[in-house]
């Protein structure tokens, strides 16, 4: 019981951190729709590696839901949800495969996040014209994924195991 409460508290803390990063990111101007660094992903990557995918899914989905309610609208919820689900799925599978390091996993996550958003946008706007954004979003997702992977990797290796061991 105590352990469960502590894990819940830790996940709440991570969700709060992810939301603060969403908020900070909303001040970084974007030139193209969908082109973002994805700062909250640093937290998601950390939780995925340290606490496993169910915890990462919980933090990610609560983050998307609350951010859309607080700062967005119904449509931003659809885009955010699609991106979060696909990128988490891809990152979970690649992490299990032990094929890439954190950076590779996060790059694949960033690119799949953007690809999912393009698909939702094409469906919502009922246009295929939007696929012309794909190359630029792949480049953006890759570069963002590198940054997020490096930052997430640092968090994973620098934050001592004992922090989480103590919590759990």
């Amino acid at each position, binding site marked *: 019981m105590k352990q469960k409460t502590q894990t819940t508290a830790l996940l709440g803390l991570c969700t709060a951190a992810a939301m603060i990063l969403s908020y900070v990111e909303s001040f970084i*101007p*974007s*030139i*193209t*729709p969908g082109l973002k660094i994805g700062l909250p992903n640093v937290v998601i990557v950390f939780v995925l590696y340290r606490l496993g995918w169910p915890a990462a899914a919980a933090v990610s989905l609560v983050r998307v839901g609350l951010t859309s309610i607080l700062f967005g*609208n119904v*449509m931003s919820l659809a*885009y955010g949800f699609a991106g979060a689900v696909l990128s988490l799925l891809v990152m979970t599978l690649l992490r299990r495969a*032990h*094929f*890439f*390091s954190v*950076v*590779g996993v996060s*790059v*694949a996550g960033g*690119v799949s996040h953007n690809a999912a958003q393009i698909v939702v*946008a094409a469906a*919502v*706007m*009922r*246009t295929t*014209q*939007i696929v*012309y*954004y*794909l*190359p*630029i979003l*792949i*480049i953006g997702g*890759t570069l963002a994924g*590198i940054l997020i*992977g490096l930052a997430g990797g640092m968090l994973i290796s620098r934050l001592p195991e004992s922090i989480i061991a103590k919590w759990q």
Partner: protein
Amino acid sequence: MPAKCKVRRDLLLIFILLLAAGATLCLTLLFRLPGDWVVVEVDGEEWGRYALDKGASIHIETEAGGYNVLEIADGCASVIEASCPDKLCVHQHRISHSDETIVCLPNRVVVSVVSGRE
């Protein structure tokens, strides 16, 4: 799995993604045609079509009550004003070549350039 191997695969993944996207981008830039028309779509339906060589200012109104102001000048189209909260459409570059597109996600407005006489 040795960490060195993984990093090498990371670099390979990054290289492949950047190469594929970069090559696609270069090819579209190389083979793009000068545009003739500006097509406005709202909610997936064609809303209007305008000649790119004639200056104009078009007030696009959506059923949801939003609007975008499209300006055509010097053979280029751009959105100069909009009711959407993010204003991403206003910040996008002017477009003048085939298949270049400006989207306004909140208003579901797509402005794209086509070439040819259709």
